[in-house]
């Protein structure tokens, strides 16, 4: 399989990580591993758009691609698991990104879970509308999940749009939304749609028809979905029907289960030591959870854990440091501990 685009993505990550994380942190990022470390790194190095955008990438494949990048002299190891780009690599990355830019609308962190459900719903809805329009009741639904079917019945009953109106409105909203895609051909989505007498293409077929690699296609497809979700979020009044399709797709704060429990206890006013004791966990684990919460919930106030004065010092250090390594910042602000630095960095990543 042609994987040059995936290599570009890996090189891009390597560049952003500046040799400060192992190559496997890229695997975790692209797989969308829900661990505090991966989530923090994604924010710290501004790689959140790529979160869970290659969910099925395996370690073996990553190893092999990394090997190929080293053989091409685009990437060099600094030790067994750490890599940096060579200057040729930097140039190559620039060239590749010009040719195949990472879709600007891609936002895996925000939309990875909503995207799947949205796609299941909209494909089934379009199929149903198309068959209704042609008065055909005999067809196999393109989505088999029971809850998606249940949702559709509910939607058709309660959407507030007349049956014959839904298609017209959806067509208008989709056209309007997809026309605004700047760097993606809307066909990446529409070719896959199924309706009366016309079955949609699979992902592989679509990428072949459009003449792009499977990997690049995959990112463009996600980019187009994320574009729709972002447009609706930004301006729900403009897309009233799609807004209804999106509702309840789990677009809200995403925490690991364990962090959720910690958050619940925090909200009850317990302090970290008590939480660690009640949950029978190490305090450092609870601290990881707090950092994860800070990353996820923009309303979360960190001042009760780091004084404002310290926050300022840490920020200054982070801005003047030539790397985002916590160790270096710690040396510059010796009165702070790692937990405090990570908390401030979590909020820093958010601002960018």
């Amino acid at each position: 399989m042609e994987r040059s685009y995936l290599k570009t993505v890996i090189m891009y990550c390597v560049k952003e990580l500046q040799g400060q994380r192992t190559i496997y942190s890229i695997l975790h990022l692209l797989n969308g591993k829900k661990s505090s470390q991966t989530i923090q790194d994604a924010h710290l190095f501004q790689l959140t758009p790529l979160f869970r955008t290659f969910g099925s990438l395996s370690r073996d494949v990553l190893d092999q691609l990394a090997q190929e990048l080293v053989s091409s002299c685009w990437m060099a190891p600094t030790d067994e698991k750490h890599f940096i780009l060579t200057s040729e690599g930097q140039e190559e990355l620039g060239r590749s990104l010009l040719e195949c830019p990472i879709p600007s609308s891609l936002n895996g962190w925000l939309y990875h879970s909503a995207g799947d459900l949205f796609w299941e719903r909209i494909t089934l809805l379009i199929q149903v509308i198309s068959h209704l329009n042609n008065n055909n009741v005999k067809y196999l639904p393109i989505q088999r999940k029971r809850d998606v079917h249940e949702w559709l019945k509910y939607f058709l009953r309660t959407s507030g749009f007349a049956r014959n109106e839904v298609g017209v409105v959806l067509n208008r909203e989709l056209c309007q939304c997809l026309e605004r895609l700047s760097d993606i051909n809307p066909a990446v989505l529409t070719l896959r749609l199924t309706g009366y007498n016309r079955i949609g293409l699979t992902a592989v077929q679509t990428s072949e028809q459009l003449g792009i690699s499977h990997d690049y296609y995959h990112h463009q497809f996600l980019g187009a979905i994320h574009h729709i979700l972002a447009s609706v979020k930004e301006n729900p009044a403009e897309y009233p029907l799609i807004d209804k399709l999106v509702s309840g797709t789990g677009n809200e704060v995403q925490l690991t289960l364990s962090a959720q429990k910690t958050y619940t206890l925090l909200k009850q006013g317990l302090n970290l030591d008590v939480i660690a004791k009640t949950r029978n966990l190490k305090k450092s684990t609870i601290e990881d959870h707090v950092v994860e919460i800070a990353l996820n919930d923009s309303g979360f106030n960190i001042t009760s854990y780091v004084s404002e004065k310290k926050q300022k010092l840490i920020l200054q250090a982070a801005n003047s440091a030539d790397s985002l390594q916590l160790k270096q910042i710690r040396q510059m602000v010796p009165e702070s501990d790692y937990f405090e630095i990570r908390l401030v960095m979590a909020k820093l990543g958010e601002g960018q």
Partner: protein
Amino acid sequence: MRLEAVLQSKFGYPAFRPGQKEIIESVLSGRNTVAMLPTGTGKSLCYQLPGYVIEGQVIIISPLLSLMQDQAEQLMMNGEKKVIAFNSFLTSAEKKQALIHLNQYKFIFISPEMLYYESVLSQLKKLRIALFVVDEAHCISQWGYDFRPDYLKLGEVRKIIGNPVTLALTATATSEVKGDIKKSLGILDDCSEFIYSVDRPNIALSVERLDNFREKTERLVELAEILKGPGIIYFSSKKKAEQSAELLRDKGAKRVMAYHGGMDQESRILVQQQFIHGQLDLICATSAFGMGINKDNIRYVIHFHMPLQIESYLQEIGRAGRDGKQSIAIMLYSPGDEQLPIQLAESELPDKAQIDWIMEWVEENPNAIPNIGLFEEQIKQRSGLTDVQWRIFNDFFDRKSKSGLDYRRILQDMKGYYEGRIKLKRDSIEEVYKWIHKKTCRRENILSYFDEGKNASVPSCCDICGLQLGNFTRNTNSDNQESPLYDWKNHLEYLLIPSE
């Protein structure tokens, strides 16, 4: 009520296919019925239609989840809402819900393992069962190529639920297997039998011998190029199916896709539907493809690998020519091909040494016996069982230990049982091998395997009787049509806006 009228109004068919009406009349008159109808001639109608004529529920026991799902969906597509597929696809909440409301359904599909649950049986007892259908009834027989231990329980289940009128359906069964079906279901002295020939005269049979794998591949490319589609090519591995589809596309055949169980569900549905709607001409498939597919005009089926039994071969080629028009089945054979199915068959079952290792483990851990399923990891580690082997082992052990057998005895039985199964499978492969190598009419040889004789003359019978491949090739190369330029807005409009 005239059955033809129901056929027309509920299913939209003007006339019955051979056998259907006789079988339906038999069950409607309250007789237990064993029916053998060849693949592709509408078996499921034999229980669907009676459901619309008689009061009460139709229970259908079906061995394969995917098949059951397909059959239930076909009914729903036909506008029937009172259908449920009661199997492990349901969540436990959904199962509970379904059990409570079981009497509200008309067609209840159940997988045999569900019948182990007391809660399921007791609900079934409360129903007014109009018809008890055992689909793929050959699975009941230990002689059958497709024996399912869960099916052994069906006779008992039938008694528990009050001996309802029973319909046992199968496409292929030797006389031995037919006897087993009747005995197990307890209808030996009380049933009507409708046996229709397994023969499908409109499907020509051909075996092509090639020297080696490379030649087989070349011939495959050639056949795909010249034969008149739509067609299916069967492979015994996902990888080979995938590679071949790619190879054929590289050679210029655009409308070819692979289909196998390793694909995600959305892609599987799409490829299947594209094929049915004529957007694809050719599918490179594993045996996962074809069950429950209603496509009348498949013109050829090619087997790239040797099938495991005559029975499954008939099932697969039976997907061709359902419209009754001339079609062809081609098997590509090169020397040594029989090794692969033998390996497949043997690797599926635990061998003697593995059972001995398990025996040692059980002796060290006697407490594990009542809940052997919980020790999957340890037992696998000790004995090196694969996932499939483990499942087979676990089923067997569980069933026997529930009936109170000592573990030594169970493991001893197991060895004998597996030896028997492997021998059976080797024999089945041997039958296919012999069939390939015989120099006499292929149709006659298949029919005699099922104790049937050949009907008069079949025009395009087989490669031995003489066959013109030219009758099955396409005239013009219609592949070169340029598809019109794609416009996404037009497509959306086509899908969403009602045409005037």
